[in-house]
């Protein structure tokens, strides 16, 4: 069904996009600015892109960040989705308890989460590094996935699942062919939030990181003292390009595979 949008809505949305993208346009522009200071425009250059790839620290930090983000997103998406699906069917007391528990990581201030996990890892004698960062990220990302998938499930009708089971579908089949397609947009939204939270987290990562597990945000926060290098603007620009390319590539592949029915990778 296609419903018409009021023109005022269109104008509002356009203005919102301008609001969101003006600062980003600046970041991109300054990645080509020949001055080291993020100040006045002093000429066009590609130098920051060249020095970016030669900068061992940035590259290491980027690869650490991506490793952590990918693994923690996969695990937290699985756990969060599983929790959101299972919680519908338990009694109300378990539901309230578990629901509250799952909200906690979102509410707890980052510094508490970071420091208390550091104390815990220390007690458990776990060496600090990528693994401890991944564990910490899974802990908070899981909740976001749970919350978003739950939103999707609230509106979903149970009848279809029941019907499928009445018709003899096993639990897995019901999930794969009935539930999953319905909640997929929620799962993907959740995973996106999890991925970006992981990629952006500073406080928690800082406390649970160890030697040679510096992530990109830790590196960038550290740089603030000396002024953030335009190399970071260049890196952001590349990340935007990569993300857009990946999304469209995935979209393209999915559409080709599924022939008739239009499918979408994003929550759309």
């Amino acid at each position, binding site marked *: 069904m296609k419903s018409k949008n009021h023109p005022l809505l269109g104008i509002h949305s356009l203005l919102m996009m301008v609001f969101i993208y003006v600062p980003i346009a600046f970041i991109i522009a300054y990645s080509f600015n020949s001055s080291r200071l993020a100040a006045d425009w002093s000429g066009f250059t590609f130098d920051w892109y060249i020095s970016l790839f030669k900068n061992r620290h940035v590259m290491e930090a980027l690869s650490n960040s991506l490793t952590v983000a990918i693994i923690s997103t996969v695990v937290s998406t699985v756990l969060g989705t599983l929790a959101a699906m299972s919680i519908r069917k338990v009694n109300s007391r378990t539901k309230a308890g578990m629901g509250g528990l799952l909200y906690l990581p979102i509410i707890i201030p980052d510094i508490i989460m970071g420091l208390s996990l550091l104390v815990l890892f220390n007690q458990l004698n776990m060496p600090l590094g990528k693994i401890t960062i991944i564990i910490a990220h899974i802990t908070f990302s899981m909740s976001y996935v749970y919350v978003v998938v739950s939103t999707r499930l609230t509106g979903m009708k149970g009848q279809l699942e029941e019907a499928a089971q009445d018709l003899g579908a096993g639990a897995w089949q019901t999930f794969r062919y009935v539930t999953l397609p319905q909640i997929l947009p929620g799962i993907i939204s959740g995973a996106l939030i999890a991925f970006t939270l992981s990629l952006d987290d500073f406080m928690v990562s800082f*406390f649970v990181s160890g*030697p040679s597990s510096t992530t990109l945000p830790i590196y960038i*926060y550290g740089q603030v003292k000396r002024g953030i290098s335009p190399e970071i603007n260049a890196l952001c620009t590349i990340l935007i390009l990569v993300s857009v390319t990946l999304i469209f590539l995935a979209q393209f592949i999915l559409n080709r595979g599924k022939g008739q029915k239009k499918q979408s990778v994003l929550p759309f």
Partner: protein
Amino acid sequence: MKKMKWAGLVLAVMMVLAVLSGCGSSKETLNIYSWADNFDADVLADFEKQYDVKINYDVFANNEDLLAKIKAGGGGYDLIQPSDYMVATMIKQDLLAPLNKDNIPNFTNIADTYKNPSFDPDNKYSIVYTSGVTGIAYNTKYVKDEIDSWEDLWNPEYKGKVLLLDDNREIIGMALKKAGHSNSSTAEAEITAAVEDLKNLLPSVLAFDTDNIKQKMIQEEGWIATVWSGDASVIAKDNPDVAYVVPKEGGTIWSDNYAIPKDSKHQELAEKFINYMLDPEVSAKNYESIGYSDPNTAAKPFHSEEYNNDRMINLSQDELSRTEWLGDVSDMLQLYDRFWTELKSGR
């Protein structure tokens, strides 16, 4: 069935984790924990080559983060760079290993001013890396009067254009100095009076900032500010209108230092590294690149003329004689913190 798949997935992820954690090189590693971009990259690479070791260089953003992390047992670090007062705190908390000076013969190159500092007598645990003095930076385009006292920050002409460091000890310490007290006073009456004085300065304050105060001065958002001498040099390079002075009441001197955490597993290598960094030629190359002040007297002939002539990097004996280290105020820190919260929240 469904659970089997989930379990399989989780297992697969765990395996990836295991593989990731397993990789490491056989070379001895030196784990450095410091401020970002605090060393010249070539100087580090040369050390790796010369000693056939690998350097891991991780960064923190402030002393308090560093302390919280080391104290909670975080680390596995071999060399850290705390500031002066933090060295004192870490010594008190028994977090540092005493340095073996036999491995650091180049220690003799350090200028006498920086030897045997009050926060670490006899340099038992630390050696200075770089140093500076908190003074006043001001833009001569807007500030026409001669500036020589902290009092000048209170001048109503600069209302809304004053920048202050975002640090309770620095700023309350500054107000204490202005009143002729020690910057580390533990007398409640003196501190209270200093804070009352600061409340009169508040309406003039544009922003509290430590890290980006340089940008704000270069961009001429602020006219007059409390600034570290090293930062003043950076500002003056980009905005020649900005001048710097150590007020007549005196300023706070600070330093970043080399220190080795108690649980370091490569203490000897860390000491070799310090010694390497204190070599005159290496030192000159390093400080030319990072632009901070070099406490190494033997390195002077190897420095460029421009570096040696920068008077914000090389403060005069007269200026240095007016300075005071921030001392430990022990539990009065709680009072400083409370007053600071009061000041900043305007309550």
